[in-house]
């Protein structure tokens, strides 16, 4: 991201500042905010029956004739060159069809990195894929074996012998700091923000905290392994992929393999968890190339070890947060700086300071991120990239300041709650964080907390409570397309390439479409998971639901116009314009005179049409630039710490969210809880063990990387303000990621309340508490 980009985005924001709100998307609140029927109802998942019966077919489960199986070989040095590559034994092994190495890999261009200015670029790494004998990080793919069975492929992969000439590699976080880069921008925001003289304000502040917080690397660890089943059919390519970016992947693959867009079809109706990791990586590319060479379908399911080796996770960070406050606790300085890893060939800047800009009012700010360039599998977006760990640092610091000032931490936050964006001065579209705190504190019983650490105990267990804020920006992606087919029978099919990794995509969009089109939910079908459908954006940034909703809004407007045209002069709604009607009860109704209406069936019958089809794209998401649009949350945690062993067990966790309209309380509660549980892992157990001596990840198993087990997860209470955002489709904002934010800080603050020990280094394992 460049200075030019900063300039462009700043000028767009400036221009939008002059444009009246009603000219922009969201300028007039979505009418469905006021008349919801299916939206907001508890609805079980559409795909629930298939999933509980094991009938939902994931990418590695598609049956194909003459299917072959592939197995990867990974490099074992961090930087170097292959000096000997012996494949004869593997090639001669039973069942082996192909050994693919840099020698016989088709020449392909590198992938274009994920970009927020080129939405069809979705690469996680711009390194060459099996194009030369050079090894650029430990675990890089150096060969692929294709055989008749998985057992044969795995065996042959072990028979390949490789010698390397190793070069010096950059693997040490601390050692890379001297060469840290300071990028001009972080995603679409300017990186370095300096308001006033924060360091000087800090020095003269009567109260201040100034500490360094560390977070380790993390891996997504979706339960479904990354997998692809590939078939070339004639000159066309069919890819069954576990991906959260169907349409963009199809575009990229077409470009990479020199095909027309319509010659590539990516299917991914079910994804077994993504969390940012299920994107386009090296394995799809080598599997597709291999399938062409063997002229048979290929299935490549990564081993769990391979997932750690070639799918990047979340970077470790070192963050300094300093807060200065006046005698009333009002912030005079907020400093948030730090280091994270971002190789030049990676795409994710782990934007841990972006959320900080909207959290608190302060007289001065100093915010900047620095990137370290190490030789690693490129880190990528992982659930709430930035905010998940940025809130850990900032929200611990606020708690530390509150303790130092003997002020209740919620009260301290209230005193610094901004009424507009603290840096840009832009108005918030909607923000009710303090209401979320009040509601949450009441239900949680926050008043029972004792401010004095270590004051409550139960046998050997010290009891503590903590809270913290979470935050996540509103994002609506451009490039969302939806097709609506309305049939004379009063049924409608909506189509979009959209993906579902467990968010309930179809379920909520059916609820939405029912209200938007004035039909019962039973009459709606939502087709998705296939790049041959109208292109949806990638599932990321918690943006898919509102992005598709925006496209459905646009398509419904088009459908209304088309229906009015078909209705003609003989219709009771003749003469009405699109803005004067609404779609309700299976027909078009005049807003002014609800008795003036005609059913879809009647309109289509008279027009001698079985169905009518419209396609539309969502409007450009200019509301994001015109308004400060953020979700926020108040997280509360009660836990126990053993004085004997240091073990931490969380007894209660509550999340109180301010995220706009909640479209389906059942699936929304699950998403909130899911994020919070990942936050528990982040707080207490999760850590990718990267051996800086070898540049190698050492705990590449689910036995050694500890995601929370059932016994770690207490009953989790979730609640929400439910206040609609007047600027977004349906009044909704994304909810997939905010759940994880704030949780690590709430846990750390509760550990402090229980023990008096302040742990600034995640995960908070028992040895740090002892």
């Amino acid at each position, binding site marked *: 991201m460049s200075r030019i980009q900063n300039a462009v985005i700043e000028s767009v924001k400036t221009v939008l500042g002059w444009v009246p709100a009603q000219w922009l998307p969201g300028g007039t609140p979505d009418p469905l905010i006021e008349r919801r029927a299916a939206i907001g109802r508890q609805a*079980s998942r559409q*795909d*629930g*029956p*298939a*999933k*509980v*019966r*094991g*009938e*939902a*077919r*994931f990418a*590695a*489960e598609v049956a194909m004739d003459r299917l072959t*199986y592939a197995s990867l070989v990974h490099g074992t040095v961090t930087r170097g060159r292959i000096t000997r590559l012996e494949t004869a034994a593997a090639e001669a092994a039973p069942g082996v069809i192909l050994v693919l190495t840099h020698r016989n890999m088709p020449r392909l261009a590198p992938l274009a990195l994920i970009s927020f200015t080129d939405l069809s670029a979705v690469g996680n790494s711009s390194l060459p894929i099996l194009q030369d004998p050079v090894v650029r990080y430990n675990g890089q793919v150096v060969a692929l074996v294709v055989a008749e*069975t*998985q*057992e044969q492929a795995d*065996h042959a992969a072990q028979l390949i012998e490789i010698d390397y000439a190793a070069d010096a590699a950059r693997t040490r976080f601390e050692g890379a700091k001297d060469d840290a880069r300071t990028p001009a921008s972080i995603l679409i925001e300017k990186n370095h923000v300096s308001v006033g003289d924060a360091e000087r304000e800090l020095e003269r502040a009567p109260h201040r905290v100034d500490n360094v917080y560390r977070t380790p690397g993390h891996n*997504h*660890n*979706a*339960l*479904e*392994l990354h997998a692809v089943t590939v078939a070339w059919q004639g000159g066309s390519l069919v890819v069954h992929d576990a991906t959260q970016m169907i349409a963009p992947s199809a575009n990229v693959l077409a470009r990479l393999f020199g095909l027309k867009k319509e010659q590539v079809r990516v299917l991914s109706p*079910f*994804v*077994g*968890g993504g969390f940012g990791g299920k994107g386009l990586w090296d394995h799809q590319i080598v599997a597709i190339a291999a399938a062409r060479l063997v002229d048979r379908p290929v299935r490549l*399911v990564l*081993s*769990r070890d391979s997932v750690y080796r070639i799918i990047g996770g979340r970077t470790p960070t070192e963050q300094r947060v300093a807060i200065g406050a006046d005698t009333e606790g009002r912030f005079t300085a907020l400093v948030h700086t730090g280091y994270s890893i971002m190789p030049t060939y990676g795409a994710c800047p782990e934007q841990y300071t972006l959320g900080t800009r909207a959290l608190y009012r302060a007289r001065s700010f100093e915010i900047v991120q620095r990137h370290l360039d190490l030789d690693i599998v490129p880190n990528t977006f992982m659930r709430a990239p930035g905010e998940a760990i940025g809130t850990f640092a900032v929200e611990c610091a606020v708690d530390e300041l509150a303790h130092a000032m003997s002020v209740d931490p919620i009260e301290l936050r209230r005193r610094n709650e901004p009424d507009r964006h603290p840096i840009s001065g832009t108005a918030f579209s909607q923000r009710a964080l303090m209401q979320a705190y009040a509601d949450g504190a009441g239900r949680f019983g926050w008043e029972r907390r004792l401010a004095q650490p270590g004051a409550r105990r139960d046998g050997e267990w010290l009891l503590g409570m903590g809270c913290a804020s979470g935050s996540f920006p509103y994002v609506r992606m451009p490039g969302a397309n939806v097709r609506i087919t309305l049939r004379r029978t009063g049924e409608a099919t909506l189509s979009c390439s959209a993906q*579902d*990794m*467990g*968010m309930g995509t179809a379920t909520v969009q059916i609820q939405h479409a029912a209200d938007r089109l004035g039909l019962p939910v039973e009459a709606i079908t939502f087709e998705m998971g296939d790049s041959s459908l109208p292109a949806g954006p990638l599932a990321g940034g918690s943006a898919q639901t509102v992005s598709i909703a925006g496209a459905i809004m646009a398509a419904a407007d088009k459908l209304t116009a088309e229906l009015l045209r078909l209705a003609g002069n003989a219709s009771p709604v003749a003469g009405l314009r699109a803005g004067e009607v609404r779609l309700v009860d299976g027909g078009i109704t005049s807003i002014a005179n609800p008795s003036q209406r005609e059913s879809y069936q009647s309109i289509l019958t008279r027009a001698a049409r079985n169905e009518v089809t419209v396609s539309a794209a969502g409007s450009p998401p200019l509301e994001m630039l015109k308004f400060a649009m953020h979700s926020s949350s108040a997280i509360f945690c009660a836990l126990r710490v053993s004085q004997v062993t240091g073990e931490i067990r969380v007894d209660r966790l509550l999340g109180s969210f301010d995220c706009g309209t909640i479209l389906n309380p*059942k*699936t929304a*509660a*699950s*998403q909130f*809880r*899911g*994020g*919070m*549980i*990942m936050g528990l892992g982040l707080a207490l157990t999760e850590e990718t063990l990267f051996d800086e001596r070898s540049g190698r990840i050492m705990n590449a*198993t*689910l*036995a050694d990387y500890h*995601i*929370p*087990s*059932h*016994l770690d*997860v207490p*009953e*989790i209470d979730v609640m929400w303000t439910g206040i609609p955002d007047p600027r977004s489709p349906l009044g909704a904002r994304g909810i997939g990621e905010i*759940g994880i934010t704030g949780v690590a800080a709430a846990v750390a603050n509760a550990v402090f309340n229980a023990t008096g020990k302040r742990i600034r280094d995640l995960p908070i394992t028992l040895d740090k508490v002892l």
Partner: protein
Amino acid sequence: MAIRINGTEVAAPDDVRVSLLDLLRERLHLTGTKVGCNQGACGACTVLVDGERVLSCLTLAVQAEGRSVTTIEGLGSADSPHPLQLAFIEHDGFQCGYCTPGQVCAAAAMLREIEAGVPSYVTADLTAPVLVTREEVRERMSGNLCRCGAHNGIVDAILEVAAGRAA
């Protein structure tokens, strides 16, 4: 000796390296049983062998000869779903659905273990009858990881089915 899978006799594969998991998924296309780690560390591949829950990824298919295997496909059907399957839907005991078949199979066996009086690490009195508590269910289901974070719904679903049985 054949392997009995959901009531149907199946020959063991010639290649003894084939795991029970891969026999099910790649050769019999019974893909309801999932592969999450192939390391015995996640529980997604849980099936019932002679009624007991085991990990099919660490079971060689040949070891199942002469035994009876029940997978998610054999536990319930569209016409007669297992009560746990209905309860998982009702309590939203999943998101992506990938760990779900393993959770359901494990839960079915777990409820029978509790009925048989088998204790767990969190059972206070090893010789007293075992109660179906939330904590017992959480400990006993800990061999089934879930990354989406559907733990509350899973436990609620299991407790509801357990209560229905007790009634």
